[in-house]
């Protein structure tokens, strides 16, 4: 596993750029553990100070240091995105593999349900969810709700990989070599499924972080724990733009954009692997 990552890093441009960008954000988020100011406290520093030596990213109208506040915001946003992605993977891999391998009636039923979740617009439903939950809304609950709604697109991708694997001749050869189904899935098919799972996980993180930012900015989430969206929400509440405190909004937007592009580059770097033909070409398998 490690060697493929090393190869990827050396030869795959998108992967290298993606790792660098995302790595930078993760390192920045890690700084939150050494932050001198606890995240919830306000008015610990003089408010509305533009970026300076003392406060690199300046301070907010609520007397918080933007730099350290941002470390917490990025960390929480990434954790949230990661949680939603992992939760939704369980459903999309389950549905995708089951309907891909089983085929027939199961496949038809699962896929028609799956297609409905693809078509249904999720934002109004999430807003409805917040509306009825109001202050009972907590981050884990929101993560669960988004995971239950955001798995369908990826399930279809995973299903197509599973279906093509099932019909490959080497799968039959493995069956007649005495391998049990679990062994076949783990040893023979996993190398083909992993790239698609990684690709969809990165995309799902982008999707869930995007939605989190949107909901938080509108105030539809628990606005006490700092996340990127919540920071922008408070900046809007204090009409930061009109008051000329541009840094309160500029740095969160900049960092989350870097995160999006980093995750996106990681996702498309997998494209070359989802199509086994190019992997064979890379292994020098080009027949004369």
């Amino acid at each position, binding site marked *: 596993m490690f060697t493929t990552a090393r*190869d990827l890093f050396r*030869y795959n441009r998108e992967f290298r750029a993606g790792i660098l960008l995302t790595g930078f954000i993760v390192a920045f988020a890690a700084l939150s553990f050494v932050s001198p100011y606890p995240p919830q406290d306000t008015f610990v520093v003089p408010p509305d100070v533009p970026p300076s030596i003392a406060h690199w990213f300046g301070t907010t109208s609520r007397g918080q240091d933007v730099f350290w506040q941002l470390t917490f915001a990025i960390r929480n946003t990434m954790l949230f995105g990661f949680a939603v992605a992992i939760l939704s993977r369980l459903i999309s891999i389950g549905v995708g593999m089951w309907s891909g391998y089983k085929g027939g009636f199961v496949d038809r039923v699962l896929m028609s349900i799956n297609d409905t979740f693809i078509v249904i617009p999720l934002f109004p439903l999430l807003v409805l969810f917040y509306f009825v939950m109001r202050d009972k809304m907590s981050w884990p609950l929101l993560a669960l709700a988004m995971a239950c709604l955001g798995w369908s697109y990826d399930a279809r991708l995973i299903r197509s990989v599973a279906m093509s694997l099932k019909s490959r001749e080497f799968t039959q050869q493995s069956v007649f070599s005495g391998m049990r189904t679990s062994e076949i899935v783990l040893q023979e098919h996993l190398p083909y499924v992993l790239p698609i799972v990684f690709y969809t996980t990165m995309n799902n993180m982008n999707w869930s972080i995007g939605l989190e930012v949107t909901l938080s900015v509108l105030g539809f989430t628990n606005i006490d724990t700092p996340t990127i969206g919540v920071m922008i929400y408070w900046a809007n509440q204090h009409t930061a733009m009109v008051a000329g405190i541009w840094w309160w909004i500029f740095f969160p937007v900049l960092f989350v954009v870097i995160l999006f592009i980093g995750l996106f580059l990681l996702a498309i770097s997998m494209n070359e692997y989802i199509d086994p033909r190019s992997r064979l*070409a*890379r292994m*020098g398998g*080009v*027949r*004369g």
Partner: protein
Amino acid sequence: MSAAAPTSAVATSAVPERVLTVRDLRAYYRTKYFGISREVRAVDGVSLHVDRNEIYGLAGESSCGKTTLIKTIVRAIRPPLDVVGGSVTFHFAGRDRDIHALSERELEGIRWRHLSYILQGSMNVLNPVRRVRQSFVDFAHRHIGKPMPEFLHQVESHLSRVRLEPATLDAYPHELSGGMRQRVTIALATVCRPDFIVADEPTTALDVVVQKDVLGMLREVQQEIRSSMILVTHDIGVHANVTDRLGIMYAGRLVEEGRTVDVIRDPRHPYTSHLVTSLPRIGDVTQKRGLDGAPPNLAAPPTGCRFHPRCPLAMAACRVEHPPMVDVAPGHRVACWVTAPPDKPVALQ
């Protein structure tokens, strides 16, 4: 034992008109994957010619370079394929034209007017989302130039040559069977009555019964429009029934060439003789022998004659230098130090 040269029923003109001349052609695949650059010598010095109204068969196994050769002949070059040397000259409308020297416009002018192509009868040779008529209009209308109704009428009468109804033009490719699709392709390739047709494994994807039927039609149409043709297939049986002359390719080079009946009845190159004798036939149960070893890796081909690692007659010279093509009988050439040494004088009939 070469069959007595039958007197030809067709009055041959003094010198048969040579439509295609290929001289010492070289085309390599140059690829660079993760820092390792590889050069695969798919076509490494091939010379051949095809006369008017003659079908030249090209046989050889997988990765022997026959498909690359015809891609280079029709200039269907796409990286990583690269033409390294030699020339391909066609004789169209009275003028000799080196296809690799033509401009894009000139090339577009001769494609399908003088030079057409029949692809392997795979599933999607024709545009899957358009009706068959559209292919005829796109490929041939600009050359035939008549007003549309008249052009379509000519196409319909041409279709009847391959026993297809005019309604076939309204069908979508997925509605036709494999045999019908291949007959449409033949009609398409011959509607402009081109001087030269290249057929790449035209019947390999078809069943035996349909294959014989389609080959018969291909031969019929070819004779009617007196065009020359190169027919590429690994199936010696197809060559025996269709082609006039036959070239055997091995690892990027021609190893034997001559009239089909001579090459099959009296093979001189050890590889050809193995190929022909090892084929099972109905009614013959004598023990057949497989060739040991494997086709050479064209990225690092063996030195000298590339067949020497698998050749039962191999001797010292074979490992050092490529054997030249030598005439062993009228129109029958072989590249082998053992069976066709260049110094032995050949009695010219």
